[in-house]
Protein backbone atom coordinates (compact mmCIF):
# COMPACT_ATOMS: atom_id res chain seq x y z
CA UNK A 1 0.00 0.00 0.00
CA UNK A 2 1.25 3.40 -0.88
CA UNK A 3 2.06 5.58 2.07
CA UNK A 4 0.82 8.77 0.46
CA UNK A 5 -2.36 9.81 -1.27
CA UNK A 6 -3.27 12.56 -3.66
CA UNK A 7 -4.66 15.56 -1.80
CA UNK A 8 -6.49 18.37 -3.60
CA UNK A 9 -7.92 21.47 -2.03
CA UNK A 10 -10.18 23.23 -4.50
CA UNK A 11 -12.10 26.46 -4.13
CA UNK A 12 -14.66 27.70 -6.66
CA UNK A 13 -12.10 30.14 -8.00
CA UNK A 14 -8.99 27.99 -8.22
CA UNK A 15 -7.05 24.98 -7.09
CA UNK A 16 -5.33 25.94 -3.86
CA UNK A 17 -3.20 22.94 -3.17
CA UNK A 18 -2.37 19.66 -4.78
CA UNK A 19 0.18 17.43 -3.06
CA UNK A 20 0.96 13.88 -2.06
CA UNK A 21 -0.14 13.86 1.55
CA UNK A 22 0.42 11.32 4.30
CA UNK A 23 -2.56 12.39 6.37
CA UNK A 24 -5.29 14.99 6.33
CA UNK A 25 -7.44 16.08 9.25
CA UNK A 26 -10.85 17.23 8.13
CA UNK A 27 -13.59 18.98 10.13
CA UNK A 28 -16.41 16.69 9.02
CA UNK A 29 -20.06 17.28 9.65
CA UNK A 30 -20.29 14.60 12.34
CA UNK A 31 -16.93 15.46 13.83
CA UNK A 32 -13.29 15.73 12.95
CA UNK A 33 -11.73 12.82 11.13
CA UNK A 34 -8.29 11.97 9.87
CA UNK A 35 -7.97 10.52 6.41
CA UNK A 36 -4.90 8.43 5.66
CA UNK A 37 -3.96 6.36 2.62
CA UNK A 38 -6.24 3.36 2.29
CA UNK A 39 -9.18 5.03 3.97
CA UNK A 40 -12.53 3.54 3.03
CA UNK A 41 -14.47 5.53 0.41
CA UNK A 42 -16.14 8.22 2.40
CA UNK A 43 -18.06 11.35 1.70
CA UNK A 44 -18.79 14.13 4.16
CA UNK A 45 -19.85 17.72 4.26
CA UNK A 46 -17.66 20.12 6.21
CA UNK A 47 -18.31 22.45 9.04
CA UNK A 48 -16.32 25.60 9.65
CA UNK A 49 -12.93 24.65 10.98
CA UNK A 50 -9.35 23.79 10.14
CA UNK A 51 -8.00 21.33 7.63
CA UNK A 52 -4.58 20.01 8.61
CA UNK A 53 -2.50 18.52 5.81
CA UNK A 54 0.68 16.57 6.46
CA UNK A 55 2.83 16.18 3.38
CA UNK A 56 6.54 15.46 3.11
CA UNK A 57 6.89 15.91 6.81
CA UNK A 58 5.46 19.40 6.73
CA UNK A 59 2.15 20.49 8.16
CA UNK A 60 -0.08 23.02 6.45
CA UNK A 61 -3.29 24.27 7.91
CA UNK A 62 -6.23 25.93 6.21
CA UNK A 63 -9.36 27.51 7.56
CA UNK A 64 -12.48 26.47 5.65
CA UNK A 65 -16.01 27.76 6.09
CA UNK A 66 -17.81 24.85 4.50
CA UNK A 67 -18.00 22.55 1.54
CA UNK A 68 -17.40 18.83 1.28
CA UNK A 69 -14.71 16.20 1.27
CA UNK A 70 -14.47 13.13 -0.86
CA UNK A 71 -12.18 10.41 0.40
CA UNK A 72 -11.14 7.34 -1.54
CA UNK A 73 -8.35 4.86 -0.94
CA UNK A 74 -5.84 6.78 -3.01
CA UNK A 75 -7.07 10.35 -2.97
CA UNK A 76 -8.84 12.97 -0.96
CA UNK A 77 -10.49 16.00 -2.51
CA UNK A 78 -11.81 18.88 -0.48
CA UNK A 79 -14.15 21.30 -2.17
CA UNK A 80 -14.19 24.29 0.10
CA UNK A 81 -16.38 27.30 -0.34
CA UNK A 82 -13.68 29.59 1.01
CA UNK A 83 -10.38 28.59 2.42
CA UNK A 84 -7.58 30.66 3.84
CA UNK A 85 -4.16 29.56 5.08
CA UNK A 86 -4.22 29.53 8.84
CA UNK A 87 -1.51 32.17 9.13
CA UNK A 88 -3.62 34.64 7.17
CA UNK A 89 -6.79 34.27 9.19
CA UNK A 90 -7.30 37.32 11.36
CA UNK A 91 -9.45 37.78 14.37
CA UNK A 92 -11.38 40.54 12.58
CA UNK A 93 -12.16 38.28 9.66
CA UNK A 94 -13.53 35.64 12.00
CA UNK A 95 -15.58 38.20 13.87
CA UNK A 96 -17.12 39.32 10.59
CA UNK A 97 -18.03 35.77 9.63
CA UNK A 98 -19.50 35.17 13.04
CA UNK A 99 -21.55 38.35 12.88
CA UNK A 100 -22.98 37.29 9.52
CA UNK A 101 -23.77 33.83 10.85
CA UNK A 102 -25.48 35.18 13.95
CA UNK A 103 -27.40 37.64 11.86
CA UNK A 104 -28.55 34.73 9.71
CA UNK A 105 -29.99 32.89 12.70
CA UNK A 106 -32.30 35.77 13.47
CA UNK A 107 -33.61 35.93 9.93
CA UNK A 108 -33.91 32.22 9.24
CA UNK A 109 -37.04 30.16 9.49
CA UNK A 110 -37.58 28.21 12.70
CA UNK A 111 -36.53 24.79 11.39
CA UNK A 112 -33.27 26.10 9.95
CA UNK A 113 -32.10 27.62 13.20
CA UNK A 114 -30.45 24.63 14.87
CA UNK A 115 -28.17 24.08 11.88
CA UNK A 116 -27.26 27.74 11.74
CA UNK A 117 -26.67 27.91 15.47
CA UNK A 118 -24.33 24.94 15.08
CA UNK A 119 -22.49 26.79 12.38
CA UNK A 120 -22.13 29.89 14.51
CA UNK A 121 -20.84 27.73 17.31
CA UNK A 122 -18.22 26.16 15.08
CA UNK A 123 -17.14 29.59 13.94
CA UNK A 124 -16.87 30.79 17.50
CA UNK A 125 -14.74 27.79 18.37
CA UNK A 126 -12.47 28.39 15.37
CA UNK A 127 -12.17 32.04 16.27
CA UNK A 128 -11.05 31.22 19.76
CA UNK A 129 -8.43 28.88 18.33
CA UNK A 130 -7.11 31.67 16.15
CA UNK A 131 -7.13 34.05 19.07
CA UNK A 132 -4.96 31.64 21.06
CA UNK A 133 -2.26 31.48 18.38
Amino acid sequence: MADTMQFDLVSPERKLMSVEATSVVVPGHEGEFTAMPGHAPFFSTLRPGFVLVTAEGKETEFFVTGGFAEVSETAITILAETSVPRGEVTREHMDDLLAVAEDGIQKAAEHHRPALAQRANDLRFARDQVAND
Partner: protein
Amino acid sequence: MPSLKDLKNRIDSVKNTRKITKAMQMVAAAKLRRAQEAAEAARPYAERMDAVLGNLARSAAGSPTAPLLLRGTGRDDVHLLIVATAERGLCGGFNSSIVKLARIHAQKLLDAGKTVKILTIGKKGRDQLRRDWSKHFVGHVDMSEVKKLGYTNAHDVADDVLARFTAEEFDVATIFYSEFQSVMTQVPTALQLIPAKFDGAAADDTAPNYEYEPSEEEILADLLPRSVATQIFRALLENAASEQGARMSAMDNASRNASEMIDKLTIQYNRSRQAAITTELIEIIAGAEAL
Protein backbone atom coordinates in the same frame (compact mmCIF):
# COMPACT_ATOMS: atom_id res chain seq x y z
CA MET B 1 -16.40 68.14 -53.50
CA PRO B 2 -14.89 68.58 -50.03
CA SER B 3 -11.97 70.94 -49.79
CA LEU B 4 -8.45 69.72 -49.19
CA LYS B 5 -8.54 70.88 -45.62
CA ASP B 6 -11.79 69.01 -44.94
CA LEU B 7 -10.31 65.84 -46.34
CA LYS B 8 -7.18 66.24 -44.24
CA ASN B 9 -9.32 66.69 -41.14
CA ARG B 10 -11.35 63.62 -41.90
CA ILE B 11 -8.26 61.51 -42.45
CA ASP B 12 -6.87 62.66 -39.13
CA SER B 13 -10.10 61.93 -37.31
CA VAL B 14 -10.36 58.41 -38.75
CA LYS B 15 -6.74 57.83 -37.79
CA ASN B 16 -7.58 58.76 -34.23
CA THR B 17 -10.54 56.39 -34.25
CA ARG B 18 -8.27 53.62 -35.45
CA LYS B 19 -5.84 54.31 -32.64
CA ILE B 20 -8.64 53.94 -30.11
CA THR B 21 -10.08 50.75 -31.58
CA LYS B 22 -6.61 49.23 -31.79
CA ALA B 23 -5.95 50.07 -28.15
CA MET B 24 -9.30 48.61 -27.13
CA GLN B 25 -8.53 45.46 -29.04
CA MET B 26 -5.26 45.07 -27.23
CA VAL B 27 -6.85 45.68 -23.84
CA ALA B 28 -9.56 43.15 -24.66
CA ALA B 29 -6.93 40.61 -25.65
CA ALA B 30 -5.15 40.99 -22.31
CA LYS B 31 -8.41 40.80 -20.39
CA LEU B 32 -9.52 37.81 -22.40
CA ARG B 33 -6.44 35.90 -21.36
CA ARG B 34 -7.14 36.63 -17.73
CA ALA B 35 -10.81 35.75 -18.08
CA GLN B 36 -9.92 32.47 -19.74
CA GLU B 37 -7.48 31.64 -16.98
CA ALA B 38 -10.14 32.35 -14.38
CA ALA B 39 -12.61 30.13 -16.21
CA GLU B 40 -9.98 27.41 -16.46
CA ALA B 41 -9.15 27.65 -12.76
CA ALA B 42 -12.80 27.36 -11.77
CA ARG B 43 -13.28 24.19 -13.75
CA PRO B 44 -12.03 21.53 -11.27
CA TYR B 45 -14.46 22.64 -8.59
CA ALA B 46 -17.44 22.75 -10.93
CA GLU B 47 -16.60 19.38 -12.43
CA ARG B 48 -16.25 17.61 -9.08
CA MET B 49 -19.41 19.26 -7.88
CA ASP B 50 -21.30 18.09 -10.95
CA ALA B 51 -19.98 14.55 -10.70
CA VAL B 52 -20.83 14.23 -7.01
CA LEU B 53 -24.25 15.78 -7.40
CA GLY B 54 -24.98 13.70 -10.45
CA ASN B 55 -24.33 10.55 -8.46
CA LEU B 56 -26.38 11.68 -5.49
CA ALA B 57 -29.19 13.02 -7.61
CA ARG B 58 -29.59 9.77 -9.48
CA SER B 59 -30.12 7.82 -6.31
CA ALA B 60 -32.48 10.46 -4.89
CA ALA B 61 -34.42 11.02 -8.10
CA GLY B 62 -38.04 10.05 -7.87
CA SER B 63 -38.00 10.03 -4.11
CA PRO B 64 -40.88 12.15 -2.80
CA THR B 65 -38.66 13.55 -0.05
CA ALA B 66 -35.98 14.79 -2.47
CA PRO B 67 -35.13 18.46 -1.97
CA LEU B 68 -37.33 20.94 -3.80
CA LEU B 69 -34.34 22.28 -5.69
CA LEU B 70 -33.99 18.89 -7.34
CA ARG B 71 -37.53 17.83 -8.05
CA GLY B 72 -39.00 21.30 -8.47
CA THR B 73 -42.25 22.58 -7.06
CA GLY B 74 -44.25 20.27 -9.27
CA ARG B 75 -45.51 23.19 -11.32
CA ASP B 76 -44.00 25.19 -14.11
CA ASP B 77 -46.24 28.23 -14.15
CA VAL B 78 -43.83 30.94 -13.14
CA HIS B 79 -40.49 31.16 -14.89
CA LEU B 80 -37.58 33.24 -13.71
CA LEU B 81 -35.23 34.24 -16.50
CA ILE B 82 -31.82 35.39 -15.37
CA VAL B 83 -30.30 37.37 -18.20
CA ALA B 84 -26.57 37.83 -17.74
CA THR B 85 -24.94 40.38 -20.01
CA ALA B 86 -22.04 42.79 -19.93
CA GLU B 87 -21.83 46.16 -18.26
CA ARG B 88 -20.32 47.68 -21.36
CA GLY B 89 -21.03 47.89 -25.03
CA LEU B 90 -18.69 47.99 -28.02
CA CYS B 91 -18.45 44.24 -28.13
CA GLY B 92 -20.25 43.41 -31.35
CA GLY B 93 -23.37 41.31 -31.10
CA PHE B 94 -22.48 39.86 -27.70
CA ASN B 95 -25.18 41.52 -25.61
CA SER B 96 -27.82 41.53 -28.33
CA SER B 97 -27.52 37.83 -29.02
CA ILE B 98 -28.02 36.90 -25.36
CA VAL B 99 -30.97 39.26 -25.09
CA LYS B 100 -32.42 37.92 -28.33
CA LEU B 101 -32.31 34.36 -27.05
CA ALA B 102 -33.93 35.40 -23.77
CA ARG B 103 -36.59 37.32 -25.65
CA ILE B 104 -37.54 34.38 -27.85
CA HIS B 105 -37.65 32.14 -24.80
CA ALA B 106 -39.79 34.59 -22.85
CA GLN B 107 -42.20 35.07 -25.72
CA LYS B 108 -42.61 31.33 -26.07
CA LEU B 109 -43.41 31.04 -22.36
CA LEU B 110 -45.88 33.89 -22.54
CA ASP B 111 -47.61 32.31 -25.52
CA ALA B 112 -47.91 29.09 -23.54
CA GLY B 113 -49.71 31.05 -20.83
CA LYS B 114 -46.90 31.04 -18.27
CA THR B 115 -45.81 33.93 -16.12
CA VAL B 116 -42.39 35.35 -16.84
CA LYS B 117 -40.14 37.16 -14.40
CA ILE B 118 -36.85 38.63 -15.44
CA LEU B 119 -33.75 39.22 -13.36
CA THR B 120 -31.00 41.03 -15.18
CA ILE B 121 -27.29 40.95 -14.46
CA GLY B 122 -25.34 43.64 -16.25
CA LYS B 123 -26.51 47.01 -17.45
CA LYS B 124 -26.64 46.32 -21.19
CA GLY B 125 -29.17 43.54 -20.96
CA ARG B 126 -31.44 45.60 -18.76
CA ASP B 127 -31.27 48.55 -21.13
CA GLN B 128 -32.17 46.42 -24.11
CA LEU B 129 -35.03 44.63 -22.38
CA ARG B 130 -36.41 47.66 -20.65
CA ARG B 131 -38.54 48.85 -23.52
CA ASP B 132 -40.92 45.97 -23.98
CA TRP B 133 -40.25 43.75 -20.96
CA SER B 134 -39.88 46.16 -18.08
CA LYS B 135 -43.14 45.07 -16.47
CA HIS B 136 -41.67 41.60 -16.03
CA PHE B 137 -38.55 42.87 -14.25
CA VAL B 138 -38.14 41.66 -10.69
CA GLY B 139 -34.61 42.79 -10.06
CA HIS B 140 -31.25 43.83 -11.35
CA VAL B 141 -27.75 42.97 -10.25
CA ASP B 142 -25.28 45.75 -10.79
CA MET B 143 -21.81 44.52 -11.67
CA SER B 144 -20.34 47.84 -12.72
CA GLU B 145 -18.41 48.16 -9.46
CA VAL B 146 -16.95 44.68 -9.78
CA LYS B 147 -13.34 44.86 -10.89
CA LYS B 148 -12.53 41.20 -10.68
CA LEU B 149 -15.30 38.68 -10.79
CA GLY B 150 -15.21 36.50 -7.71
CA TYR B 151 -17.20 33.64 -6.31
CA THR B 152 -18.79 35.99 -3.81
CA ASN B 153 -20.49 37.87 -6.64
CA ALA B 154 -22.07 34.68 -7.90
CA HIS B 155 -22.88 33.68 -4.35
CA ASP B 156 -24.81 36.90 -3.77
CA VAL B 157 -26.84 36.36 -6.94
CA ALA B 158 -27.51 32.77 -5.92
CA ASP B 159 -28.65 33.86 -2.46
CA ASP B 160 -31.07 36.27 -4.04
CA VAL B 161 -32.43 33.63 -6.42
CA LEU B 162 -32.72 31.00 -3.69
CA ALA B 163 -34.53 33.40 -1.39
CA ARG B 164 -37.04 34.04 -4.14
CA PHE B 165 -37.41 30.32 -4.69
CA THR B 166 -38.03 29.72 -1.00
CA ALA B 167 -40.62 32.49 -1.06
CA GLU B 168 -42.25 30.58 -3.93
CA GLU B 169 -41.88 33.44 -6.33
CA PHE B 170 -41.12 31.13 -9.23
CA ASP B 171 -41.07 27.47 -10.22
CA VAL B 172 -38.35 27.26 -12.84
CA ALA B 173 -35.18 29.32 -13.16
CA THR B 174 -33.13 29.59 -16.31
CA ILE B 175 -29.97 31.58 -16.81
CA PHE B 176 -29.00 33.10 -20.15
CA TYR B 177 -25.35 33.71 -20.89
CA SER B 178 -22.85 33.30 -23.65
CA GLU B 179 -20.69 30.23 -23.81
CA PHE B 180 -17.12 30.95 -24.84
CA GLN B 181 -15.85 28.77 -27.67
CA SER B 182 -13.23 30.88 -29.36
CA VAL B 183 -12.46 34.52 -30.01
CA MET B 184 -14.64 34.32 -33.10
CA THR B 185 -17.53 32.30 -31.72
CA GLN B 186 -19.56 32.75 -28.59
CA VAL B 187 -22.75 30.78 -28.30
CA PRO B 188 -25.70 32.27 -26.42
CA THR B 189 -26.92 29.54 -24.09
CA ALA B 190 -29.88 28.89 -21.82
CA LEU B 191 -29.20 26.77 -18.75
CA GLN B 192 -31.86 25.58 -16.37
CA LEU B 193 -30.79 26.11 -12.77
CA ILE B 194 -33.87 25.16 -10.80
CA PRO B 195 -34.99 22.43 -10.67
CA ALA B 196 -31.48 21.11 -11.11
CA LYS B 197 -30.80 19.09 -14.21
CA PHE B 198 -28.03 16.59 -14.59
CA ASP B 199 -27.60 15.35 -18.05
CA GLY B 200 -24.64 13.85 -19.84
CA ALA B 201 -23.08 12.62 -16.61
CA ALA B 202 -23.60 8.96 -17.34
CA ALA B 203 -23.68 6.68 -14.34
CA ASP B 204 -20.14 6.29 -13.08
CA ASP B 205 -19.99 2.61 -12.26
CA THR B 206 -16.34 2.75 -11.37
CA ALA B 207 -17.04 5.15 -8.50
CA PRO B 208 -16.45 3.42 -5.20
CA ASN B 209 -19.38 2.84 -2.95
CA TYR B 210 -19.14 5.87 -0.74
CA GLU B 211 -20.22 6.00 2.79
CA TYR B 212 -22.07 9.23 3.37
CA GLU B 213 -21.98 11.39 6.41
CA PRO B 214 -24.53 12.81 7.08
CA SER B 215 -27.13 10.93 5.02
CA GLU B 216 -27.17 11.20 1.24
CA GLU B 217 -30.29 13.27 1.30
CA GLU B 218 -28.91 15.76 3.79
CA ILE B 219 -25.77 16.13 1.73
CA LEU B 220 -27.88 16.70 -1.33
CA ALA B 221 -29.88 19.38 0.44
CA ASP B 222 -26.63 21.02 1.47
CA LEU B 223 -24.99 20.82 -1.93
CA LEU B 224 -27.81 21.87 -4.21
CA PRO B 225 -27.79 25.53 -3.16
CA ARG B 226 -24.01 25.54 -3.56
CA SER B 227 -24.37 24.04 -6.97
CA VAL B 228 -26.70 26.88 -8.00
CA ALA B 229 -24.01 29.35 -6.97
CA THR B 230 -21.34 27.36 -8.79
CA GLN B 231 -23.37 27.28 -11.97
CA ILE B 232 -24.06 30.99 -11.83
CA PHE B 233 -20.37 31.57 -11.22
CA ARG B 234 -19.48 29.45 -14.22
CA ALA B 235 -22.00 31.31 -16.38
CA LEU B 236 -20.57 34.65 -15.29
CA LEU B 237 -17.02 33.53 -16.01
CA GLU B 238 -17.98 32.23 -19.44
CA ASN B 239 -19.74 35.51 -20.04
CA ALA B 240 -16.68 37.51 -19.06
CA ALA B 241 -14.47 35.56 -21.45
CA SER B 242 -17.06 35.77 -24.23
CA GLU B 243 -17.45 39.50 -23.76
CA GLN B 244 -13.74 40.12 -24.15
CA GLY B 245 -13.55 37.76 -27.10
CA ALA B 246 -16.46 39.48 -28.81
CA ARG B 247 -14.96 42.87 -28.12
CA MET B 248 -11.63 41.78 -29.49
CA SER B 249 -13.04 40.68 -32.82
CA ALA B 250 -15.39 43.68 -33.01
CA MET B 251 -12.48 46.04 -32.45
CA ASP B 252 -10.37 44.15 -34.95
CA ASN B 253 -13.07 44.70 -37.56
CA ALA B 254 -13.38 48.34 -36.63
CA SER B 255 -9.64 48.88 -36.99
CA ARG B 256 -9.67 47.21 -40.37
CA ASN B 257 -12.59 49.34 -41.55
CA ALA B 258 -10.81 52.46 -40.36
CA SER B 259 -7.70 51.48 -42.33
CA GLU B 260 -9.78 50.96 -45.45
CA MET B 261 -11.43 54.31 -44.99
CA ILE B 262 -8.09 56.04 -44.52
CA ASP B 263 -6.83 54.53 -47.77
CA LYS B 264 -9.89 55.70 -49.66
CA LEU B 265 -9.72 59.19 -48.21
CA THR B 266 -6.01 59.47 -48.92
CA ILE B 267 -6.56 58.61 -52.57
CA GLN B 268 -9.33 61.18 -52.75
CA TYR B 269 -7.09 63.73 -51.06
CA ASN B 270 -4.23 63.14 -53.48
CA ARG B 271 -6.53 63.34 -56.47
CA SER B 272 -7.97 66.66 -55.33
CA ARG B 273 -4.51 67.99 -54.65
CA GLN B 274 -3.39 66.95 -58.15
CA ALA B 275 -6.49 68.53 -59.65
CA ALA B 276 -5.79 71.78 -57.84
CA ILE B 277 -2.19 71.84 -59.07
CA THR B 278 -3.29 71.15 -62.63
CA THR B 279 -5.85 73.95 -62.55
CA GLU B 280 -3.26 76.34 -61.21
CA LEU B 281 -0.78 75.39 -63.94
CA ILE B 282 -3.38 75.84 -66.66
CA GLU B 283 -4.14 79.28 -65.30
CA ILE B 284 -0.47 80.29 -65.31
CA ILE B 285 0.14 78.93 -68.83
CA ALA B 286 -3.03 80.54 -70.16
CA GLY B 287 -1.93 83.84 -68.60
CA ALA B 288 1.54 83.60 -70.16
CA GLU B 289 0.11 82.83 -73.58
CA ALA B 290 -2.19 85.82 -73.44
CA LEU B 291 0.76 88.20 -73.19
